[in-house]
């Protein structure tokens, strides 16, 4: 009965496959070209906000990105010198993180992965605090409540559900869609292209859509999940995933800080206004290794790296600022100097990070300590003392 000819099932696969990952596809939102030229987009435009100096804002973005990159290179060096056990580099993803991070308001809440050093920077987390986890002295040195910035989450995708639940909490607290700009809040869940395959992430889409929760799903598609290319996870542009769940998705040039800022700001606005979730795919590239223990030469071509170098997120802003005379030599020099200081701060601070005591491990297992564990701690303390004794 193979005479049956296959009827039209809607989007032909060819069409679907087509734009998959090529050049970001026809739908990429871009406001600043790799050459540093501002371009228009029908739906999105860069708006620093009323009464805010646009040039000032863009110089701020530049500064943020340079300092973020410095944090990254410094931490990488610290790992090489054995001061950190491992480091997850963000090289190349500065615009995706600063653009989205700067679109946040204080009352918004962020759920990061393990790579959001730039977003942490925007949330005023002392980068030194980020090192603790990678040095192995703690598992996250900051209080999420202080800066509305959650702890780094290592289990891929888990935080997207936490973000959705947190957003459901905001709805119950009546801080969504009140029209009060200083009150209305939203959540951003960061995750990667690989994470988009996890059940948890898709369940987060389900819950967010079902409750119309104020959450922005911000996916940094850096083309790689360790050694696996994006094609293994999705054969269509990732942002289109959202259409399957009934909320909007948009792909933005993740190396364009202006576009990322504009798109994230709009998505956050929708969420705060009570219009529900949005999927933002920041199309970017992981210029470094997956982590300092990874060896990308085993699975990807240096050519790709070269083509992406031409799209560097910082270079294009510098080109824009200089070409249009919006920043002086002094400005760039100052940022450099600031970066130097930051590097020093990290080098010295890292070595000075307090070492945990072996006994501390018993202290925060529970909010209400159990007699069992207290006894186990006492026993271990006595055991450790027995050596002190021996040495004395």
């Amino acid at each position: 009965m193979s005479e049956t000819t296959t009827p039209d099932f809607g989007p032909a696969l060819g069409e679907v496959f087509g734009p998959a990952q090529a050049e970001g596809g026809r739908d990429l939102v871009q406001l600043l070209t790799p050459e540093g030229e501002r371009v228009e987009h029908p739906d999105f435009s860069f708006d620093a906000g009323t009464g805010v100096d646009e040039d000032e804002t863009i110089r701020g973005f530049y500064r943020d990105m340079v300092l973020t990159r410095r944090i990254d290179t410094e931490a990488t060096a610290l790992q090489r010198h054995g001061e950190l056990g491992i480091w997850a580099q963000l090289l190349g993803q500065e615009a995706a993180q600063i653009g989205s991070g700067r679109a946040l308001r204080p009352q918004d809440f962020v759920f990061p992965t393990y790579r959001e050093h730039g977003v942490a920077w925007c949330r005023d987390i002392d980068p030194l605090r980020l090192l603790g986890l990678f040095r192995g002295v703690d598992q996250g040195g900051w209080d999420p409540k202080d800066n509305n910035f959650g702890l780094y989450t290592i289990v891929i995708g888990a935080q997207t559900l936490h973000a959705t639940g947190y957003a459901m909490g905001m709805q119950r607290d009546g801080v969504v869609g009140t029209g009060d700009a200083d009150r209305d809040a939203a959540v951003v869940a960061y995750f990667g292209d690989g994470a988009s395959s996890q059940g948890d992430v898709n369940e987060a889409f389900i819950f967010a859509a079902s409750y119309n929760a104020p959450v922005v799903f911000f996916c940094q598609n850096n083309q790689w999940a360790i050694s696996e290319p994006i094609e293994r996870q999705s054969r269509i542009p990732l942002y289109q995933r959202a259409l399957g769940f009934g909320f909007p998705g948009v792909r933005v040039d993740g190396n364009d800080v202006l576009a990322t800022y504009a798109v994230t700001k709009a998505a956050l606005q929708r969420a705060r206004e009570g219009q529900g979730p949005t999927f933002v795919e920041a199309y970017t590239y992981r210029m470094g290794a997956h982590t300092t223990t990874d060896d990308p030469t085993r699975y990807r071509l240096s050519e790709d790296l070269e083509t992406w170098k031409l799209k560097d997120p910082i270079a294009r802003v510098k080109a824009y600022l200089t070409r249009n005379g919006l920043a002086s030599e002094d400005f760039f020099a100052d940022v450099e100097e600031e970066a130097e200081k930051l590097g020093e701060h990290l080098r010295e601070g890292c070595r000075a990070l307090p070492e945990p005591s072996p006994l501390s491990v018993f202290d925060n297992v529970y909010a209400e300590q159990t007699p069992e564990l207290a006894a186990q701690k006492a026993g271990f303390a006595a055991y450790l003392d027995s050596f002190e004794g021996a040495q004395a």
Partner: protein
Amino acid sequence: MSKITLAKGLNAGLRKAMEDDPKVLVMGEDVGKLGGVFRITDGLQKDFGEDRVIDTPLAESGILGTAVGLAMRGYRPVCEIQFDGFVYPAYDQIVSQVAKIHFRSQGKVKMPIVVRIPFGGGIGAVEHHSESPEAQFAHTPGLKVVSCSNPVDGYWMIQQAIACDDPVIFLEPKRQYHADKAELDESVSPAPLFSSRVVREGSDVTLLAYGPMVKTCMASAEAAAGDGVSLEVIDLRTLSPLDMGPVVDSVRKTGRAVVVHEAHTNLGMGAEVAARVAEECFYSLESPVLRVGGFDTPYPPSRIEEEWLPDLDRVLDAVDRSMAF
């Protein structure tokens, strides 16, 4: 004073907790209009609204994962898992997130989440509806695990679990939901949540049980008494942490102990209790701690579940073996 079933006790306890604290939420599959497949949340959505009694999409990981976010926002979610066998899709969120976030954050983030799980067999159900997953949670630091065995404990323990700032896996013996009624006297203040209790005094052998097996052990003790054998029965109530005090006192007295549970014997709670009793009561033991548990097979088709489950005869058989040692 009124006579209530376990189902009613839990329902009343949940209602009380929601009245006392507006941050308490109930969430899960079919907990709203339907009141849960066992009606434990019956009437709650009608009285507290859809924002506080939340019917969720059909995804257990989603239920626990969003509960984590709600807890971070200051809420106290009480998650219902419809049947024991369906908690596993949420296992990752429970052991890697719920259990670890307080530790990960050095105490800065609390996880006052209660995971209600109707557990155990004996209701003639199909596969996955009669599991006893307690050991898989008790082995995980960061979680607390308790099980109620009667209506009055159900009423108090669920409130205490909700009030606890740590995540609590709350195991409800589903077979008992509508079985026996008991007097609830609100004026009698409850024992602490994480305490075991001697529910029958005896001198020859100590029976250790929790949840559905407490009733079985009480019946066994009654029967044994007829044969002049005096069994002490302890309702463990808390599985993590264990409250070894009453257990050690009892075994030092009787010199013999039998642990009883429906969960598979291999690596079940009985293994931990036996190991600890052996260590703490070594010189008092006149026979090794024996275990009566579900066999090390998957839970069987319901027509043979009564043979598979520990019952009075198997408990008394173990008692005989213990005394013959």
